């Protein structure tokens, strides 16, 4: 820390940081455009001009750019200096010369950094009356809208897109005052972080195209802190609602998790909440031959009460995409022994193994921010760019750690972004990627390795052995692999913060264990190695920690004659083989489905209850690092508003949709008559923490419902929220009462505490004079650092430090290609592999279509050419060897339940994937529209055959 003098007053500042960041951290309002806390300074926009003085006597001073000047001890500057102010105002005026008169029809209006800065500069009158420069716009796909006229040439978009996110198809074109930011031609932006351009752009050049279809100003959105449900990383989001539909997602800064950026799946997947596939009222059928009919809430519960009072045994199937509270409520309803997790045996074993490794091993699991700090990374078996995209973006930053040393040696401060990048050139730190097929972060990889899971595991084990000779040695590895393992081991050993990333995406336990071996070998050498596992769903780890059997064990229990099957937010046909699910569902006399969307499983249910989607419920999710994060209800899904002009009080009927745990409670009340067990979310959370000690920290994930700031709740609506007395006037002239929130410290209202709430309860970023997302600066003690009061989230998993971990000894056999058979590998896709986001029209448009991938050589051996169709016949076969003795979860080993008995035949279009190994084929994982293939656990063996054109499918 050092002292700087701003307008003749001393302030503490961080030595060597740039002055703009320090001034903003100190709370000064200094305008800027091109600087961004995550991107650093380039000094392009000349907006943050200040006066610098030589010494106390110097009254004249000189104008410098705050973002390009380092804070040195005793430096004397002035923000308020008239000349500096005039300079800044005239810069704003020049920028506005070509800026169109668009604000009323611009989607950025009301949260526009350019508007804020223009006001801050005091530039209020437009003197220029000449002609304005114009550009044609480009169609950049279904997610991002382009309106180039508004550009002020700050270069933030290309700096983020190309330099930060590694995109290649957006660039600055032309020259002089005609610089154009766009692609070489119209087309979808390739990078999966293109949505961040919406927040990065200080004005309305890049705006949210999904929001444009149901446009609402920022001040009219009802918002609440939420957590993304589209992958296992748990990025923090701010969804916004208006008139009962979800309108958009904005990034909610969490310094430890997502920082300033979200992936496009997280940002644009929200539209599933508005989808036509939503269950909006209870559906009921008295016997299976009938169709499901809409029913009233009371009718459905009465029916359930009758079913339950018959003394039936109830089996519950939970879900890794439902909150901890919802799963726990189901567990309480059915009893601990009747509760199953709704994850396939294979996946549950993998998750249990991950949890066990993280809990018992010596290695820490890093947050995304810590991933960015890692200086040598090994990715083993996980296509992170598709299964956990934000992690891929973090890796793009981690490869800068070692090259940064070059800049440091040259005396360039790291915030001086352009100079640092010039110094680094194309230098990347060590990043080794060993995956099934090519990934989108291969461009920054030091070396890549491709192979089926067994080969990846063997590579991992070899690295571990190279690091620590006590670790098991893999026999029969090729020399190239051996050499690669040695090289990787060297780099990891040399690193200050080595990191190993793996996951359950390739479906092989040996890979998970191999990653653990590598990390532990480093730990045993005394290196501060970190181990990061990617899990597929938003609460995969939380569900696993809750404990419970797999789907297969549920089937076994059903065979013992169970009566009622209660399924929570889960499409079982995505989890396991269709035949197995069919048997499970057929065994139940009654099937009760509680979910927010309709799917294959709910179509077979006898009672379907409408559950609240993430934006309509509160709950706790546990992400891949074991961080428990609370998400909050954004809006109450409304039913109809009742009341006529003569009615005394209008009643706002809240509709039938309610949180899953409330359904469980209602079922308990009608079934067993235990009245009033839980009245609010806090009751469920408390009961869960009491029942499962390892989940106790979820109580601290966010303040309870009783929390108040100055005796007030925190409002979900901004103080400028409009239309309150007119929005329902077409239905009833009486204004409905605001819904009450019993579950949280937030209120569905404009009224409440106006200041800064605690970090886990921030419903929106706004500060006086700062209407754009940049208001975030005011919520951080140090701009770019964690939120004031600490980043939200409570860790559930603490490693056992200093402990020497015993290595896994299980060495898989090497991969042997078979004749006439192919090993089908799961290929993940950011757009398509996830169940919910695919219901959003924008994401669906970008989704891949079903295919079967082969390398061109194998394809030509089969006589296949591009555009051909392939016939696939799955080989019924017992799963890989089962080893569950060290699993945390109570998984019963039973191979009989785990047999794929179907021998179905599928027909799929061919696609070339050059990096697939000979003898392996790729199938898109989790894609809808794949029929029964959707539930098949991959990798699996199958036979391929060319489909003759015009010939119908066999069987």
């Amino acid at each position, binding site marked *: 820390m050092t002292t700087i003098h701003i307008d003749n007053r001393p302030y503490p500042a961080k030595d060597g940081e740039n002055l703009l960041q320090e001034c903003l951290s100190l709370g000064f309002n200094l305008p800027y455009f091109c600087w961004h806390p995550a991107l650093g300074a380039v000094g392009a926009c000349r907006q943050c001009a200040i006066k610098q003085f030589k010494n106390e006597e110097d009254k004249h001073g000189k104008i410098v750019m705050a973002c390009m000047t380092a804070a040195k001890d005793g430096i004397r500057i002035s923000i308020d200096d008239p000349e500096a102010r005039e300079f800044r105002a005239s810069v704003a005026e020049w920028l506005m010369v070509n800026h169109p008169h668009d604000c*009323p029809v611009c989607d950025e209006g009301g949260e526009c950094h350019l508007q804020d800065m223009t006001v801050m500069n005091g530039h209020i009158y437009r003197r220029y009356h000449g002609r304005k420069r114009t550009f044609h716009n480009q169609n950049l796909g279904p997610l991002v809208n382009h309106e180039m*006229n508004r550009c002020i040439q700050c270069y933030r978009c290309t700096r983020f897109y190309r330099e930060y996110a590694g995109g290649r198809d957006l660039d600055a074109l032309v020259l002089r005052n005609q610089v154009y930011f766009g692609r070489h031609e119209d087309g979808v932006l390739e990078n999966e972080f293109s949505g961040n351009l919406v927040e990065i752009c200080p004005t309305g050049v890049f705006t949210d195209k999904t929001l444009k279809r149901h446009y609402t100003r920022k001040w*009219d959105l009802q918002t609440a802190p939420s957590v993304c449900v589209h992958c296992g990383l748990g990025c923090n989001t701010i969804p916004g609602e208006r008139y009962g539909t979800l309108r958009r997602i904005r990034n909610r800064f969490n310094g430890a998790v997502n920082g300033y950026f979200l992936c496009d799946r997280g940002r644009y997947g929200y539209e599933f909440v508005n989808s036509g596939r939503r269950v909006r009222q209870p559906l009921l059928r008295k016997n299976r031959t009938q169709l499901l009919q809409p029913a009233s809430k009371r009718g459905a519960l009465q029916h359930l009460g009758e079913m339950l009072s018959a003394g039936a045994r109830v089996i519950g199937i939970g879900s890794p995409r439902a909150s901890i509270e919802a799963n726990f409520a189901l567990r309480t309803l059915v009893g601990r022994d009747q509760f199953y997790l709704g994850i396939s045996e294979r996946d549950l074993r993998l998750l249990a193994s991950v949890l066990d490794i993280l809990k018992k091993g010596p290695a820490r699991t890093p947050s995304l921010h810590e991933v960015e700090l890692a200086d040598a990374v090994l990715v083993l078996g996980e296509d992170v760019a598709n299964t956990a995209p934000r992690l891929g973006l973090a890796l793009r930053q981690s490869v800068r750690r070692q090259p940064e040393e070059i800049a440091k040696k040259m005396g360039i401060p790291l915030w001086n972004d352009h100079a640092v990048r010039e110094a680094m050139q194309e230098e990347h730190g060590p990043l080794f990627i060993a995956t099934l097929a090519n990934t989108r972060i291969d461009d920054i990889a030091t070396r890549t390795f491709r192979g089926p899971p067994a080969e990846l595991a063997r590579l991992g084990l070899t690295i571990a052995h190279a690091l620590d000779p006590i670790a098991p040695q893999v026999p029969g590895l090729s020399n190239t692999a051996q050499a690669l393992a040695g090289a990787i081991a060297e780099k990891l050993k040399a690193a200050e913060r080595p990191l190993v990333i793996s996951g359950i995406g390739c479906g092989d336990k040996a890979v998970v264990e191999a990653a653990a071996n590598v990390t532990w070998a480093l730990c045993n050498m005394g290196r501060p190695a970190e181990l990061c596992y990617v899990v597929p769903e938003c609460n995969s780890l939380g569900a696993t920690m809750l404990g419970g059997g797999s789907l297969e064990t549920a089937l076994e229990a059903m065979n013992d004659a169970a009566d009622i099957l209660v399924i929570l937010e889960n499409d079982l046909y995505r989890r396991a083989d269709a035949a197995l699910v069919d048997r499970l569902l057929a065994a139940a006399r009654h099937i009760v489905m509680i979910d927010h969307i309709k799917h294959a499983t709910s179509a077979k249910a006898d009672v379907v209850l409408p559950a609240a989607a993430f934006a309509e419920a509160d709950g706790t999710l546990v992400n891949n690092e074991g961080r428990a994060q609370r998400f909050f209800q954004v809006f109450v899904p409304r039913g109809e508003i009742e009341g006529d002009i003569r009615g005394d009080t209008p009643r706002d009927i809240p509709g039938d949709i309610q949180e899953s745990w409330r359904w469980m409670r209602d079922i308990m009340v009608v079934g067993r008559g235990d009245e009033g067990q839980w009245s609010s979310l806090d009751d469920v959370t408390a009961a869960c923490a009491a029942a499962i000690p390892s989940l106790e920290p979820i109580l601290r994930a966010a303040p309870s419902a009783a929390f108040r700031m100055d005796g007030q709740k925190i409002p979900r609506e901004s103080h400028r929220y409009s*239309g309150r007395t007119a929005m329902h006037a077409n239905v009833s*002239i009486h204004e409905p009462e605001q819904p009450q929130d019993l579950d949280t410290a937030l209120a569905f209202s404009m009224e409440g505490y106006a200041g800064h709430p605690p970090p886990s309860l921030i419903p929106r970023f706004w500060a006086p004079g700062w209407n754009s997302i940049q208001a975030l600066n005011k919520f951080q003690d140090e701009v770019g650092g964690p939120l004031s009061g600490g980043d939200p989230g409570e860790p559930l998993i603490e490693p056992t430090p200093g402990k020497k971990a015993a290595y896994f000894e299980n060495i898989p056999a090497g991969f042997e290609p078979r004749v006439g058979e192919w090993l089908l590998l799961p290929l993940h896709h950011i757009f398509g592999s996830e169940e919910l986001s695919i219901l959003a029209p924008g994401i669906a448009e970008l989704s891949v279509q079903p295919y079967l991938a082969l390398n061109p050589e194998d394809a030509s051996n089969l006589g296949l050419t591009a555009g051909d169709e392939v016939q696939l016949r799955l080989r019924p076969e017992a799963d890989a060897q089962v080893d569950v003795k060290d699993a945390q979860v109570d998984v019963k080993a039973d191979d009989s339940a785990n047999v794929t008995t179907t021998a179905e035949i599928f027909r799929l279009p061919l696609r070339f994937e050059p990096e697939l190994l000979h003898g392996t084929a790729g199938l898109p994982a989790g894609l809808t529209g794949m029929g029964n293939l959707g539930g098949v656990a991959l990798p699996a063996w199958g036979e391929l055959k060319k489909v003759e054109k015009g010939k119908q499918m066999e069987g």
Partner: protein
Amino acid sequence: MWNSLKTMWIVFLHMFHRRATIQYPDEKPNIPPRWRGRIILSRDPDGEERCVACYLCAAACPVDCIALQATEDEHERRYPEFFRINFSRCIFCGYCEEACPTDAIQLTPDFEMGEYNRKNLVYEKEDLLIDGTGKYPGYNFYRVAGVTIGGKNKGEAENEASPVDPHSLLP
């Protein structure tokens, strides 16, 4: 005491003054054009809706009695999908007119809005939209704005240069 009596005398003399009252329903008052009465939505000189659904009137409204939803036609011209004013809440402050950047929303000299049923005071867009330009003739926001709409491409608005060709190599 004297003052009081004097006052009484002066007041008494008022008996012989002219009545200031206008016998309203029989005799129509002369209302100035800037009177803040019933709110209307006007059209631009080309006969299109002036409202671009920017939500500023709704934000400015101190009683929150304006609700609307923006939408776009096939040429991306933005207009309100619905526009509702609850006149049973309106205080005729005129802030909406102040806030309107396109001169679309205007207050008129009509004040005769009495209703027996409050519901009849909820005006939808069809009730608000008039066929003329109202108080401000001539102005057409879309002729000035930089966005494209049907019949107006980039560079065709007032004071606009023709669009830059990003593929050109000329300096």
